[in-house]
């Protein structure tokens, strides 16, 4: 089986990524005033050498919410991606035409690792209503729209009121269920809507290839974790090919995909993760949880090639899983730091 974008072992990956990332650091230093000032203040002068990817300076991902960080001229901006944050702040990610093309191409190469080279019928665990109101086009809508490229003959598992649509799902399965088909949705929606529907209606999803994203937090009250999710889908619907993925708008085009045997995420060949000890910020040993840094050679139009996320994760092993490289998991989010302070009396009451 061709593993597509998941082929480099850790040594080869480090060797391939380091010079590219160092070059990107120089590129962004040259083209983003903000980034250059930051590197200068952090004592990372131009031309400084780096012995390892882990030595490169990172950017906290929240920076994209408060600052204009781009390495292209204003008139080259082709697309501005935004993501809504927990506090209403929005990340703004600037792409030129080339970057927009690259991210879509690399995302598709990554996803095709599990869907195969051809477009196959696709069931979306979402609603068509997402695209109705272009003005309020959400991150969720953008995510779904981006994924739709990987399939054909799309069907939506939810109606426009976001209720399960058994007729649409059954019709899709009647037409395409005997050959491989793609299912995409956010994890909790797959669980709450598609799984429930398939179980109660005894639908056969055994030819399905599920690609889903989103954490388990929203399912925690139902005591569902990844292992239980996979087990129940396999037992009750026959769906055994299920791939969770991890990604963020600030590193658009780069997705970390769950391997076939489940439970671990892997990095595509143009990316890596570094889990850092939140006290020393050194790389945490295998098995020790820490804060996740994501690196990718894709971001060229904005300085997002080395990002410190606010996610907690753990590396389970290196070169010892379904695919080569680091085998890791996301464990949750770092809580947001809160100020005590006098400036918060009454607003708190009305929250």
């Amino acid at each position, binding site marked *: 089986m061709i593993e597509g974008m998941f082929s480099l072992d850790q040594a080869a990956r480090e060797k391939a990524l380091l010079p590219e990332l160092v070059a990107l650091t120089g590129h962004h230093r040259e083209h983003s005033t*903000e980034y250059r*000032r930051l590197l200068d203040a952090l004592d990372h002068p131009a031309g400084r050498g780096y012995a390892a990817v882990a030595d490169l300076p990172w950017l*906290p991902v929240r*920076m994209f919410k408060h600052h204009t960080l781009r390495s292209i001229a204003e008139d080259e901006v082709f697309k501005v991606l935004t993501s809504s944050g927990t506090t209403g702040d929005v990340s703004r990610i600037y792409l030129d035409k080339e970057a927009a093309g690259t991210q879509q191409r690399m995302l598709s190469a990554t996803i095709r690792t599990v869907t195969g080279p051809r477009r196959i019928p696709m069931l979306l665990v979402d609603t068509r209503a997402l695209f109705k109101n272009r003005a309020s086009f959400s991150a969720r809508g953008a995510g779904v729209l981006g994924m739709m490229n990987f399939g054909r003959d799309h069907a939506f598992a939810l109606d426009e009121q976001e209720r399960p649509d058994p007729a649409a799902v059954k019709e899709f399965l009647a037409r395409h269920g005997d050959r491989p088909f793609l299912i995409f949705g956010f994890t909790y929606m797959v669980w709450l809507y598609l799984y429930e529907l398939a179980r109660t209606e005894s639908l056969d999803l055994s030819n399905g290839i599920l690609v889903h994203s989103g954490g388990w937090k929203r399912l925690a009250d139902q005591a569902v974790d990844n292992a239980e999710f996979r087990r129940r889908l396999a037992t009750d619907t026959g769906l055994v090919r299920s791939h969770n993925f991890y990604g963020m708008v600030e590193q658009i085009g780069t997705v970390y995909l769950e391997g076939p045997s489940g439970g671990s995420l892997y990095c595509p060949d143009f990316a890596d993760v570094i889990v850092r000890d*939140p006290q020393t910020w050194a790389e945490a040993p295998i098995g020790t949880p820490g804060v996740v840094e994501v690196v990718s050679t894709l971001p060229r139009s904005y300085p997002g090639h080395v990002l410190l996320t606010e996610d907690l994760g753990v590396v389970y092993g290196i070169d010892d899983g379904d695919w080569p490289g680091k085998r890791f998991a996301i464990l949750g989010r770092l*809580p947001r*730091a809160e*100020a005590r*302070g006098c400036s918060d009396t009454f607003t708190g009451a*009305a929250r």
Partner: protein
Amino acid sequence: MQRHVHGGGPMSLALRFPAGADTDTLRLLADLAGEPTGGALVVGDERIAEFLVAFGRRLLAPALARRWPELGSLGFFLRRGEIAKAVASVAEQPGALRFPQGLIFHVPPANVDTIFVYSWALAALAGNRNMVRISARSAGAAEAVLDALNATLADAHPAVRDTQRMVTYGRDDAVTTALSAACDLRVVWGGDDSVQRLRTYPLRPAARDLTFPDRSSYSVLSAAAWRDAPAAARRAVAEGLYNDVYWFDQAACASPRGLFWVGPAEVVDPAQDELIAEIAAVVATRAPAVDASMAVQKQVSAYGLAAEGDATRVRFVGNAVAAIELARPEAVPQHWLGTGTFAYARIDRLTDLVPLLERRDQTITHYGFDRAALVEFARALGGRGVDRFVPVGQALAFAPVWDGYDLLREFTRLVTVTMT
């Protein structure tokens, strides 16, 4: 940890002090309207003073003061001598009698656990009946304070129970409306937004607000004094600065947000490096709780200043200390950057700060200047900004004069008797 303590139905309040069953606004106001045991309270009422001193003693108990150092400061504030001094400051003058305002409604900040006690204690000492809204999100030291208050009540004069209430209520406009309409003075602490929101609830025509909105505070250090200081004195400055910064997560109004070194660059540069080293040494022994979230918060803030060109150098000493060299004094941050952020700039003389400071600025903590220099600085500011100059280490020491108000005077009223 967050606690959500509030009563069930509309207009319902959880009674935190004196601890008791849920009540409602009508009952609360009726209870406070009655004549207290032993007669109406007077300014400096001995029944209240007695209670405050006993309560302060409890806060100074070693176990409590160790766990919550800020409660220790509160305990000192409530010693017999301090209270006597405060009462003496509002002693009656011939022909001018002083009386309590009446009923005071306090809305203290949710997040500074103890500030409500200062404002309430002075208001009670002034002889007022008080209603204090305790945030449902209060935790930690605030809970310890309430426990100590309730424990002290057992041996206290019943007049304390008759006149003082601390309550928690949720999102209930009706309660705020009722308490605002009933009070003679409303004391609002906290952010500009909170103050503005509270102002939408009408007071009676003769009642008024005493507001403590958002403030910023800074530190000024004489580089020459630092250069000439012996090691022990330098350590004392670092410890003072440590307390000012790390208590209340550097988020209190009086917590310094920026440091201004006064002196020529060749004296300031080594002094700044030495100060950060001293602070790092203090941090190593005190081990402040700076978690990963706070470390990321500081990175985001510091990196942000650098990206915008406001900072020229950013250094971290572990997670506890972020040292930020500002590009110019005007770049000093007015907003919270995360606990343990030392943003510094150099100036030639104190008065260079005059054009930078404004009404919003509250406390200047100082090291290495004589009184004459500070008075000259204060005169140059002319009251347009900065209400208080205190030595490094005393930023958070509450004083009966706060934000330019003499609180006991605010909490009382004068009745004049003129004969001829």
